[in-house]
Structures are given as C-alpha cells and as structure tokens.
C-alpha cells in the first residue's frame, strides 16, 4: 500500500477523481465560519523546504492547520543542511521525532522519491527540481473541473518555460491522463527533449497554439534564463509568447487563464489578462488549500490505489 504522493505518474484516474472529490468537500469546510476540522488531530507534519517558497509552504501549512495537524517548518537557512549534514541524515533525524507527514521541496529532482524509499512517514512532494509538483497539478485540475465540469476533451494550452517547470510536467502527466488535448507552447529552447512522447502537441507560435483553447496555463519566466541562452529579452518574450487580451481572441470566448504564481506581469502575462474575468488565479490559491487538505487526509491511512511506478 502506498503512503506517499511523489509523482502524478503514480496516480490512476480513480485516484485523481478521489482526490478532487475529497477536495470539493474540504472546499466546503473552508467556506464555514470555523474553517478547522479535527480530522488529523494528533498527527504531526514537517514542512521541509530546501528551496525558498512562500506560496506552497503557506498553502501546506494552512492545510495542515485546518486539519488540526501539528506543524513544524524546517527551512534551509535555519537548518543543519548548511552545516554539511547529508540529506538522508536530516531525514532520519526528523523521522526520529515520529512525524506522520514530511512535505519536501528540494532543488534536486528525485529527492522526494529517494526519501520515500526509506522513510516511514508519508512523503509529499512539494516540488522537486525540474521534475514534478503534483499538488499544483491536482489543484489546477480541480480548478479546471470546477469551471469546465470535466477535463476530457478540453483544449488546454501550457505556455512558457516548460523545460524548467515542474508545474508543467506534473500538469502534462495529469491532464493527458484525464483525456485533455494538451498543447505546449514555447520557443524550442524551453522545450525538454522527448516531451513530444507525452501525447502532447507542440507549438512555437502562441496564436496557433491557443486557437480554440478552453484553458490557457501560463508559466513563470525567470529572468536568469536570459543568461543561459534560453531566450533573448523579456520584452521580446512578451511580444511573442506573453498572453495579452488581443492574442486571446483566438481562444474560446469562455477560456480560463491560469498561472501557478508568482506572476511576472508584462513578461508572460499582461495585467489586463490576469485581472480579467477569464483569470482563475485566485481560485487556484483557495483550491490549492483544499487539494492539499484532501491529499493529507487521504494519505493519512494510505488508501490511494497507485497504478504506476517509476
């Protein structure tokens, strides 16, 4: 029986459905006056962030608190990692406290997987390197289902730095699994090799890629990509791949626009778009909370029937 959430690839469509339907119930809890339930009282979670994160960590922490879980945050600057302790020693030390959940973000791909191999606690991947960010994909899927009813058959365009984006990878795995027509739109420099094998359509032209799109997912462009030769100026990026109201005209009239945050207005997305009614960016935030509560709840006695394997 699996106890961890490491990769979307490990989830069956039934698992995803169960997580989303449970998240719907938690979203109802979040709308109450008293937003806290005693579900995971007596459980302990450690948020182990080896990489700076405000949003994801806040979301996990709040999810844990809403479930009455005891929470400890363990971040790099205050940790013993800087003293040269090995990753695995750090994990073993933390496990000695008898924690139930370890939520890990790490700059190296595969770390949550490696940790899950020997840890007794439930390991939740909160983002590993350029590999995966499964809870982000689940909250994005939840948001799409909330707005569109279902994912199957939708035209979903993911625009931007696919190469460096764990959000993109997890979403590609999740949305194709659920039957969406996934299109990736990026300059060739930002497309990872072999990604075309994932049952996606590749576009370098934004206008063509978002034609008749039901959903447009924009990804954060990091300024330091300029020095790696991945792109030229951010101004040029915006001109060709930045999402503007004018370019959105070729998408469906009821298209929704998503962004995992934090946004660079005027680089990957124009303010007129992220502030428009098409934008569901703030729904993503609240849904993130509900999805993370659902994952914690479901993993607390490990009932996801995993089908995949790495």
């Amino acid at each position, binding site marked *: 029986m699996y106890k961890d959430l490491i990769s979307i690839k490990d989830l069956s469509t039934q698992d995803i459905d169960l997580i989303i339907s449970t998240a719907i119930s938690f979203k109802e809890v979040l709308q109450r006056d008293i937003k806290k339930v005693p579900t995971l009282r007596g459980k302990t979670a450690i948020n182990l962030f080896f990489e700076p994160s405000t949003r994801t960590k806040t979301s996990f922490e709040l999810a844990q608190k809403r479930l009455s879980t005891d929470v400890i945050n363990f971040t790099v600057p205050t940790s013993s990692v800087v003293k040269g302790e*090995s*990753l*695995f020693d750090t994990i073993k030390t933390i496990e000695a406290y008898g924690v139930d959940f370890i939520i890990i973000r*790490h*700059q*190296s*791909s*595969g*770390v949550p*997987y*490696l940790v899950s191999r020997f840890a007794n606690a439930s390991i939740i991947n909160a983002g*590993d*390197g*350029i*590999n*995966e960010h499964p809870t982000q994909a689940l909250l994005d899927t939840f948001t799409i289902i909330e707005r569109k009813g279902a994912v199957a058959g939708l035209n979903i365009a993911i625009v931007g730095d696919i190469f460096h984006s*764990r959000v993109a*990878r997890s979403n590609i795995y999740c949305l194709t699994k659920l039957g969406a027509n996934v299109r990736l739109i990026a300059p060739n420099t930002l497309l*990872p*090799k*072999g*990604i075309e*094998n994932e049952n996606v359509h590749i576009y370098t032209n934004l206008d063509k890629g978002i034609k008749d799109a039901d959903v447009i997912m924009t990804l954060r462009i990091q300024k330091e990509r300029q020095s*790696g030769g991945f792109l030229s100026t951010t101004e040029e990026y915006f001109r060709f791949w930045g999402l503007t109201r004018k370019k959105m005209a070729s998408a469906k009239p009821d298209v929704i626009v998503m962004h995992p945050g934090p946004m660079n207005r005027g680089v990957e997305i124009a303010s007129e778009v992220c502030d428009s009614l098409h934008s569901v960016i703030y729904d993503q935030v609240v849904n993130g909370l509900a999805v993370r509560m659902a994952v914690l709840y479901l993993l607390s006695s490990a009932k996801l029937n995993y089908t995949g394997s*790495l």
Partner: protein
Amino acid sequence: MDIILKNGHIVDPSAGINTVGHIVVKDGKIKKIILASGIAEEETAKDMQIIDVAGLHVFPGLVDIHVHLREPGYEYKETIESGCKAGLKGGFTTLCCMPNTRPPNDNKTITEYIVQKGRSLRLCNVHPIGAITKKQDGKELSEVGIMKDSGCVAFSDDGRPVTNSLIMRRALEYAKVFDVPIISHAEDVYLSDDGVMNEGYVSTHLGLKGIPAEAEVIMIKRDIELAALTGGSLHIAHVSTAGGVSAIREAKSLGINVTAETTPHYFHITEDYVNGYNTSAKVNPPLRTQKDVQAIRQGLHDGSIDCIATDHAPHHRDDKECEFDRAAFGISGLETALALGLKLVEDGVLSLSTLIEKMTIAPSNILKLGKGTLREGADADIVVVDLNMEFTVDKEDLVSKGKNTPFHGWRLKGVSVLTIVDGDIKYNLKQVNQ
C-alpha cells in the same frame, strides 16, 4: 619460486596462441611456453611450483589503461593498495591511473610518489598518467618531458576536457616530441552544461538535466581534427556514443593517428539504469541508449574501438548516497570488467581471442607499456580464469573501496582464480591445487 602452469588453455593474442599448453615462469619472466603435451626437464626441477590448471584458461594479465586510484588526496574513496587489490581480483596486472588526484598529478613529485607507492606495494604494475595542463585547468602545459622521465605513460586531463582548442593543439604537438599519447576526455562542457545523465526522453521523464550525445561527438571530432593537424598521438577515452564510434572509424580510415577505448558499462547498459534516481548509474560520459550500445559493440567488433578499459571510478558511499544532482560521477569497474567482457563473447560480438586482445596487448601497445603478452622473456603477468564459474555481482563483495556498481545483482560467468604479477602469485581465489 618459479612456476609451471600446467595444462591450461592458453590464449595470447600477441603471440597468436589459442591452445592447451604449459607455461614456465622463471625469475619473474616467461621462460617458455610448451604447446606439446609433455613437459621436459623443468617438470623435474624440484624447486619449481607446479600448478595444474587443466580446464581453466590462461591469459596475459589484463591491462587497464584507465583507472582512478584516488591517491593521493581521496584515500577515503580508494587507495593505490585497495585499487590494486581490486584489480588483481578482476584479473588485472597493470593499471594506468588518471591524474585527477588531490593535488592532481601535474608534476614529477606526485608522479614519483605514485610510482614508488606502486612499486613498494608489489601488487599490480602501476603506471601514472600525467595531467596535460597544470591543475588540470586547461591553461598551461605540465612538464610533460620531466613527468615522462619520472614514469608517466600518457597525458590526460581526464575528468574534464581541454576546453581550449589551442591548448589541445599545443599539447598534441608538444607530447609528440616525447612520444607520449594524449588521452582525450571528449566532452563539450558547454553542451553538457549542468547535465547529470543522457539527454532524451528518460531525462525528461525523470526531470533530470541531460547531456546530449553531441557533447561527446563534437569533442571527438575536434580532437581528431587536431590530431590530423599535428600528427600527434591521440587516444579517445571512454567512447559512449554511436556518433563517436563513427567519427573514430572515419578518422582511422583516413589514416589519422587515433585510438579509442570504451568500457563495459557502455556496451551493456543504457540510460534506463538511471530510473529510480540510481546514482550507481551516474557516470560521465553518461549511459546512453540502446542504439549507442549497439554501435559501441559494432565498433569493438570492427576494430574502430581498439581496447576495453574500465574507467574504474570508485566513490565513497557518502558521495553516492545523496541527491542525484549532487552525486559523484563514476562506476567501480575493475572487478566486473572481465566477466562483462566475456559476456560479449557469449553474445557473439567478439571472439574470446579478440576480447583478450582488447584487454591486454591492444591497450598495452597504445601506451607502449610492453605488457599484455606471454611471449618468452616478457614479464610474467598472467591471469588464470575459470570461464564456467558463475557468480552474482554483490557490491558489498567488492574489494575496491568503491561499491558503486550498477551491475549489482547481475549473474555473470567467468572468474579469475589466479593472478600472477612478475612471476609471483598475488591473488589466489581458492588456493588452486598445487
């Protein structure tokens, strides 16, 4: 004590021998090979140790021109002693060690230290390979002539390439004066960037940064062009790509002075071994694809690749049991190379004789070591192998300090039971009946 190895199946490609016979070892040298069934007067000499090796194979001691013995500086990963013991167990009698020690072997003091240490241990023959450039930083040439006089048999900045083409040109020109080969670690570091495995679908699937095959191919081609330009002697280390094999094949057909080696992991396993973030399969150049494995095998078969080395790169577990990105590159190879090579014979890629050639006389000739032969008068470096003995690779059984092998759990056939260096038995698996 002088030795007679009786009734073994002797395979010595250097002498064209592939038959049952006896070897007489006297004063550390091969005195005689007797291919007739009877043994003459030596048998009666009472101070001779007579070892019956009937049913076993006898080869020249294996020669590995690409190992990392880590000493000085990284003794926690391997020492000259532990590396030599691993070599003896693997059937190797001669090891040429790369200069990426700490400090690097870029001056005669380090060279002399390694040579002395190797001699005093009296295990394998240890020949250092000197750094092409000081500190291996690709800027200023080392004292190639002085280091050669101190015992360096070749020069390489292995672990990294000589990035600057001008310096590589000068190195080839300069080394020619001293008649020593330059060994190229062929990698375009700008193309590999911070990649940690082969670039392709598997790297994307694992979210790991990739090193394209072209990072190797481009550099092999550059170095071949420089070899053609300078007439220097170029040896390409650890060829891993189909493109690299083609480039070398073409260069050879044009008469360019280039030789090449590959290693067992490039002709047996692919990037799929990285799945599960298996750091034992993290190596540079990275494990490639099935197509590359086939091309490497073809290259060995048609002679484009001259020899098999191990690129034995032992690491401490702390350098491997960590994040994949942070894990050290390298595979501990000395103790599995022979059996993995023999698997090529089983797979019909090479004849037994050609395999042994590529692990003895061929590498010896590339670095002009005068080893890898059982000719009369040669140093008595011999390995006796049981080709039928099966074993399961267990990393914990490795004599090397580096337990980092991706072949853990493999069932293999062919075990060296007796390793003789300079006429002395240095390794004896089961006290062969004497």
